[in-house]
């Protein structure tokens, strides 16, 4: 790309002709090429977002008919609801634990999967399975496996002597969130590991050769060469996982399905219950919760990017 541009510098420096460089296009032409994508995104992403804002300022009856303007009532109701503190805390624990564990295990797994060994292809296929499977199906599967009476996990752990009596993984408040986090990590690892394998592949071999000639050991090579060069991939892994995990619905919806109240809900499932499952079906309240969620994820990602220095990292 650099070569192509330098070749055209003289042409551009003659102001009289003002010919556009071949790489630039007029706006109407762009509209032609991007139009279909734009229409779809405006219609089904932007429009619902606007609808969400509008809905949050109105009240609705139980079947969803608009009753009238609500001002900020939905927001004050949402922000003062007694369950919000617990729900925000659950969300923080859920996102932080799943993202951190996923990144750490993902890094290790990626390192392993980029080594060459007999049968690697099968291991890579196995890692794909939770990624390709619908989250809701995997969640149902874990719901049974975690079951107090019929679950294989209790059976397995008791067989190994790790626990001596069955644990109510999805009913006992002390174990529900950790169990859900375990499933969250399990389903997030494949994508993350693959992202890091891609990142590792993009690191030029000669860098490692130079390190080897300099006599750097395995750990130093990893810390001083691999990790810094993997930084863009790690950054993207953290941001995308934050978004995915925050928005993750099926794992909590299914695994926490039989518990009453909001004791283990995250902001997403809390919002969903307000909108579609609570006795009031309060769409206006749920819309303000939805906007709150959008804001939270924007802030969280923004703070993270600020913290790690997005510009500096993407330059690498």
């Amino acid at each position, binding site marked *: 790309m650099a070569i192509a541009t330098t070749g055209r510098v003289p042409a551009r420096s003659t102001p009289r002709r003002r010919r556009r460089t071949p790489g630039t296009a007029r706006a109407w032409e762009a509209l032609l090429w*991007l139009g279909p994508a734009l229409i779809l995104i405006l219609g*089904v992403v932007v429009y*619902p977002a*606007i609808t969400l804002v509008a809905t949050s300022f109105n009240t609705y009856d139980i079947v969803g008919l608009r009753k009238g303007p609500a001002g900020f009532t939905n927001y004050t109701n949402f922000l003062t609801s007694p369950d919000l503190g617990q729900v925000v805390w659950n969300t923080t624990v859920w996102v932080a634990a799943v993202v951190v564990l996923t990144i750490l295990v993902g890094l290790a797994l990626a390192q392993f999967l980029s080594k060459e060994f007999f049968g*690697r292809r099968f291991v890579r296929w196995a890692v794909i399975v939770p990624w390709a499977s619908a989250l809701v199906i995997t969640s149902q599967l874990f719901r049974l496996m975690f079951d107090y009476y019929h679950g294989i996990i209790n059976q397995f752990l008791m067989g190994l002597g790790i626990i001596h009596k069955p644990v109510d993984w999805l009913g006992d408040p002390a174990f529900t969130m950790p169990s859900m986090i375990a499933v969250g990590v399990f389903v997030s690892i494949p994508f993350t590991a693959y992202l890091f394998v891609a990142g590792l592949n993009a690191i030029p071999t000669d860098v490692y050769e130079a390190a080897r000639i300099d006599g750097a050991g395995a750990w130093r090579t990893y810390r001083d060469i691999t990790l810094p060069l993997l930084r863009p991939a790690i950054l993207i892994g953290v941001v995308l996982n934050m978004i995915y995990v925050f928005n993750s619905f099926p794992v909590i919806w299914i695994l926490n399905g039989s518990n009453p109240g909001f004791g283990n809900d995250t902001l997403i499932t809390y919002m969903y219950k307000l909108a579609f499952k609570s006795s009031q079906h309060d769409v206006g309240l749920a819309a303000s919760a939805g906007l709150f969620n959008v804001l939270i994820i924007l802030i969280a990602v923004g703070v993270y990017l600020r913290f790690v220095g997005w510009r500096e990292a993407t330059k690498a």
Partner: protein
Amino acid sequence: MTTSALRAASPPRTIATRRPKGWRNARRFVLPLAGFVVLLVFIAPYLVMLLDALRPSGEVLASPPTFLPKTWTPAAFGEVVSDPAFQNWLKTSLIVAICSTIIVILVAIPAAYFTARFTFRGRLAFLGLIVITQMFAPTSLVVGIYREFYDFGLINTYTALILTDAAFNIAFALWILQGFFAAIPKEIEEAASIDGSGRFGTMIRIMLPLTLPGVVTAVTFTFIAAWNEYVVALTLIQDDSLKPLTVGVNSYVTAYQQNWSQLFAASLIAIVPVVILFALIEKHLIGGMTAGAVK
């Protein structure tokens, strides 16, 4: 930067570091063994699923449970396949996934090609919009999506699901395709335009064949995302016969009936083709993610 996709397409190399000789001999056994353990960790839950699908539902709920079935029977698969409800869910899943994938590809290819090749006013705004789309998973907007389709009378329609799945998957397809388009040397395209091809002709006849792995990856990703979508379908489809598999299969296990072996048989029918599809593009996957993500 533009070479990253090409480089990633070449097979990954071994990283030669100085290691004691004993390790070099040992790793021939240690690595495959560790690999087998990793494989088991990721497969084991789905093995449990298979074994539960292959026994009567009553035995799934035995307490204590056994790992292997006491009675082996493939009956659940037969019951599920001949269940008209299941056939309807499968039909919905197929229609929705295929239609939304076609829409995404038709819409994302020109957009990806154009943004990879040309600068124009509003390019950054467009790319910003795409990033934001990716952040607003349908989940956080689901109340707004529900209101929109409610207002347009599209609750309980395939159209609603197809449009939503298509719109929210444009972003990822666009990133992948853009990386592949950007990796093709400009000279190839310039030669084609000298030959007299228009821009669209150049894209179709010269660029598309060169980016086929990218297209395949984008197609697979979109198809799987639409096939596995849950929350939008759960919200927009109340009519049992119009539900997709992800929502429908859950009705095998409710407060009133506990047909776990049927749930798992149906689940396996939903999972296996997608896993195979995914495994087939595994090689392109890494190239696609490098191109899309490492930049």
